[in-house]
């Protein structure tokens, strides 16, 4: 029924699975000159897809600093692990589910959440929080509204049911994401050091246990699908999208966390992308052993499944365990308590090969190293794009053009500009979204969405708390990938610091177009360089992440380069927990950081006035930013800071407004700015606004980097140089803008 090896070669059937002529030759070499059969070819094609092998980005990923004395596990396992003291460690990772979400938004997003949660508990950690970073085309388009609403429903349905709070995230809308939304999910977990698990096989003769849902035909070739451009035909790949069962996942979490306490468990890994193939090959490769699978024993939910289908299925909520021989029944009993089966489907063998048997026939036999470490690596060509060169030429005139338009359209009425910015979908409150997420379950959430710059969770039984955020301004990265990459890192660090935490690690979700296009590859290279520079300046390691390429729709081109930074920070003392809203009338408002680097290229105001972004993105001095991070944390730890909020999209004016919402307070801004529009609305630099009862101490600590700009008022008005805006009317606009964008259009 499947083509035979000779037909595969002669008719180049491998190219349909995304395998190139050169790669097909290499596969043949790895098999000692033998042509692969259809099952083997299928397994190679998923294992060598970008999604599983990072073959286009490995040389880039190697640039990240991945070590610090606290890193217990860097990239390469299900998720990275960092020591946080008290015998505890934090585990986290981000992952994309872009392609599935483009064709089946509800299940695509739901299974994205499920997948990343499994990555975290497969390390032995209890998942304690989820975050997500979403990108859609503008909401004026009906398809985009559909994708947006369904993706949010998918995350809500899965996350709420599985009982992991969704505590934070970010959402942006831009037409570059038309038809190719980005759905990146991050999960954070906690474990005791002694519970740390690895996805490794070992001990010849030991058993391979299959746990969780049965295998069906859903998601076959999902990883391959995720490694090619989206097209009109992508709709036909809907069967490549998996279907999630959060109830099964919840049982798996409880059962696996109980099972890892059993001393005879050698390794555990999630069956994620490329399902049974990837988990078995990777576990064997890491252990320097082989695995023989008997597919007759695999629990199946559909009839007459072939070896090819079972090996490539991406049915969700499945795990693979390696257990010492003789203890299979004891481990199976733990799963039985949770109504799950743990079935012995294979054996660890000494030959380093993956051997697959089905109905008495050996269906596949491949060296595990060939499937994993020896996957091809490509050094792609890179070329500076024309748009970038033109942007640099236009950069000098951006500011003058903004001023001219603001004068023409708004007669320089700053409050009117502010009100329109607050209604911009990227700035408007996201409560429409986060109210659909249970952000409190597990009762650890100290600061959920829109409370602090980072979400904050206390760690039960300790004085500690974790802060977490996801950040990426892809407009900046598009205009100038290197500076933009550094800006994303800087913003994430500001958010973590503003919450009172010390940043301890990063996971990066790199979303780009096709690496085969030299201009796209240049974006990848440069933005990684920017992130690396910031990681080094701030001394924060990257402990894992995800790469999603081919985010292009043939007719529309690539999405903006979107390297999402997921950052986690540690708070040692609950007194240091800091939120963004002002707290007391009479407190001083102080701006930290200068706006020398601030600019309008890629700003929300530019987008609003011109409908597009162009020029160069704002700048940042990383050494200065690093120094400011340290002093800001010092100020918080000394108890000088009553609230802190970073200056990002929309600039200082939006930051000030957001600090007042929901508080009942107002603010009077007395600082006389030389260049008002720049001071109020330009973006970039490394800035926060804090409120304090001890302004002299703050000013002394920061020196020239701080300026007193005003004070908190008891009346809920924003007073700015003689103009007056009631906070309630501004808040009304901000709170409901997203509802209007979705509902009025519908």
């Amino acid at each position, binding site marked *: 029924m499947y083509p035979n090896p000779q037909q595969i070669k002669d008719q180049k059937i491998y190219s349909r699975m995304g395998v190139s002529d050169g790669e097909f030759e290499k596969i043949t070499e790895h098999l000692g000159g033998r042509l692969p059969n259809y099952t083997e070819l299928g397994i190679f094609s998923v294992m060598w897809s970008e999604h599983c092998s990072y073959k286009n980005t490995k040389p880039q990923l190697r640039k990240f600093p991945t070590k610090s004395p606290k890193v217990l596990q860097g990239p390469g396992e299900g998720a990275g692990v960092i020591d946080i003291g008290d015998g505890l460690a934090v585990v986290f990772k981000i992952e994309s589910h872009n392609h599935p979400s483009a064709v089946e938004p509800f299940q695509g997003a739901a299974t994205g959440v499920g997948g990343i949660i499994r990555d975290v508990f497969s390390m032995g950690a209890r998942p304690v929080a989820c975050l997500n970073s979403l990108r859609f085309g503008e909401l004026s388009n009906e398809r985009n509204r559909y994708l947006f609403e369904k993706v949010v*429903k998918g995350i809500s349905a899965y996350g*709420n*049911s599985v*009982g992991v709070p969704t505590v934070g995230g970010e959402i942006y809308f831009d037409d570059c994401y038309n038809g190719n939304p980005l759905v990146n999910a991050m999960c954070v977990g906690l474990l005791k050091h002694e519970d740390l698990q690895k996805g490794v096989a070992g001990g010849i003769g030991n058993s391979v246990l299959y746990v969780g849902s049965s295998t069906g035909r859903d998601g076959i070739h999902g990883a391959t699908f995720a490694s090619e451009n989206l097209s009109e035909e992508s709709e036909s790949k809907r069967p490549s999208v998996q279907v999630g069962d959060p109830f099964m996942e*919840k049982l798996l979490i409880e059962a696996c966390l109980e099972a890892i306490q059993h001393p005879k468990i050698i390794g555990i890994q999630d069956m994620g992308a490329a399902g049974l193939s990837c988990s078995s090959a990777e576990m064997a490769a890491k252990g320097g052993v082989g695995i023989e699978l008997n597919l007759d024993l695999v629990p199946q939910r559909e009839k007459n499944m072939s070896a090819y289908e079972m090996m490539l299925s991406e049915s969700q909520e499945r795990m693979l365990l390696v257990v010492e021989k003789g203890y299979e029944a004891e481990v199976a009993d733990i799963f039985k308590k949770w*109504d799950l089966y743990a079935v012995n489907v294979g054996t660890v063998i000494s030959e380093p090969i993956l051997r697959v048997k089905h109905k008495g026939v050996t269906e596949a036999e491949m060296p595990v190293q060939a499937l994993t470490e020896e996957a091809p690596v490509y050094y792609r060509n890179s070329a500076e794009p024309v748009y970038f060169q033109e942007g640099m030429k236009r950069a000098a005139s951006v500011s003058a053009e903004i001023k001219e338009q603001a004068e023409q359209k708004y007669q320089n009425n700053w409050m009117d500009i502010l009100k329109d910015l607050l209604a911009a979908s990227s700035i408007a409150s996201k409560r429409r979204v986060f109210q659909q*997420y249970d*952000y*409190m379950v597990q*009762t650890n959430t100290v600061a959920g969405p829109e409370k602090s710059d980072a979400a904050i969770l206390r760690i039960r039984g300790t004085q500690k708390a974790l802060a977490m955020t996801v950040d990426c301004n892809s407009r900046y990265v598009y205009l100038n990938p290197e500076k933009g990459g550094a800006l994303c890192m800087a913003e994430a660090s500001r958010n973590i610091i503003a919450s009172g935490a010390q940043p301890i690690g990063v996971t990066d979700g790199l979303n780009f177009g096709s690496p085969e296009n030299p201009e796209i590859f240049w974006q990848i290279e440069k933005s990684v360089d920017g992130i690396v520079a910031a990681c080094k300046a701030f001394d924060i390691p990257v402990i894992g992440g995800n790469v999603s390429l081919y985010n292009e729709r043939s007719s529309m081109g690539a999405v903006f380069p979107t390297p999402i930074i997921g950052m986690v920070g540690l708070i040692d003392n609950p007194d240091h927990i800091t939120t963004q809203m002002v707290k007391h009338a009479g407190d001083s408002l102080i701006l930290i950081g200068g706006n020398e680097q601030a600019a309008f290229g890629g700003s929300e105001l530019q987008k609003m006035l011109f409908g597009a972004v162009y020029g160069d993105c704002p700048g940042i001095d990383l050494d200065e930013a690093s120094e400011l991070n340290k002093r800001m944390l010092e100020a918080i730890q000394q108890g000088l800071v009553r609230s802190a909020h970073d200056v990002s999209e929309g600039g200082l004016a939006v930051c000030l407004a957001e600090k007042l919402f929901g508080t009942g307070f107002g603010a009077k801004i007395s600082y006389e700015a030389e260049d008002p529009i720049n001071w109020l609305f330009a973006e970039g630099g490394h800035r926060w606004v804090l409120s304090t009862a001890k302004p002299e101490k703050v000013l002394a600590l920061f020196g020239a980097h701080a300026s007193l700009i005003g004070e908190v008022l008891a009346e809920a008005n924003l007073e700015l140089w003689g103009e007056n805006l009631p906070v309630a009317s501004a808040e009304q606009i901000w709170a409901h803008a997203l509802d209007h964008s979705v509902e009025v259009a519908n």
Partner: protein
Amino acid sequence: MKVAVLVFPGSNCDQDMLGAWQLMPKVECQYVFHSESSLEGFDVVAVPGGFSYGDYLRCGAIARFSPVMKALQEFAESGKPVIGVCNGFQILLEAGLLEGALLRNEGLSFICRPEKLRVANNHSMFTSAYSENQVLEIPIAHGEGNYYCDAETYARLKSNGQILFEYENNPNGSFMNIAGICNSKGNVLGMMPHPERVVESLLGGTDGLPLFHSILNFCQHKTA
């Protein structure tokens, strides 16, 4: 005093419920798995929120057939306090321990946010530590919390003082703003809002604490 927190496959507020009880003085609390058939020795049973059996078929519809539910029926008949929150409320309704039904939220979306509640009756074993008409802020987190009953049932609930909590700003379409009710004997409470989430000021409020204190007071007076 001994408190049982029931755990069904898919319960996910069990840890939160246990955590809230652990803050109470002289209370011993433990999980009781759905497969157990006895609740002997316990003074209070809490049925926590979550998605028991994935909420498949209908919220709470499968959980009510768990072995522990038979024991819970007997426990409730003995007059001891039973509290069901969110999915726990749904299970108690399915089991027939409370009257009415919970429908999908009016807006068809899951809603998670702090919500203002009014204590409609403070003469119950669950609300005695609140003052009458006290307004509380307690979070909700549900997709199917739209309480419904017919007019006749409502009249009975109302006249018996079985409506313990009402929403100030009805978030989900619940009939007559009902957020929490008890049975006619007054010892079984079901409510959609989560009192166990507001028992520590670090997490944003303590309006849930008096509910736990009320139950504690009741049990202590009974033994005294």
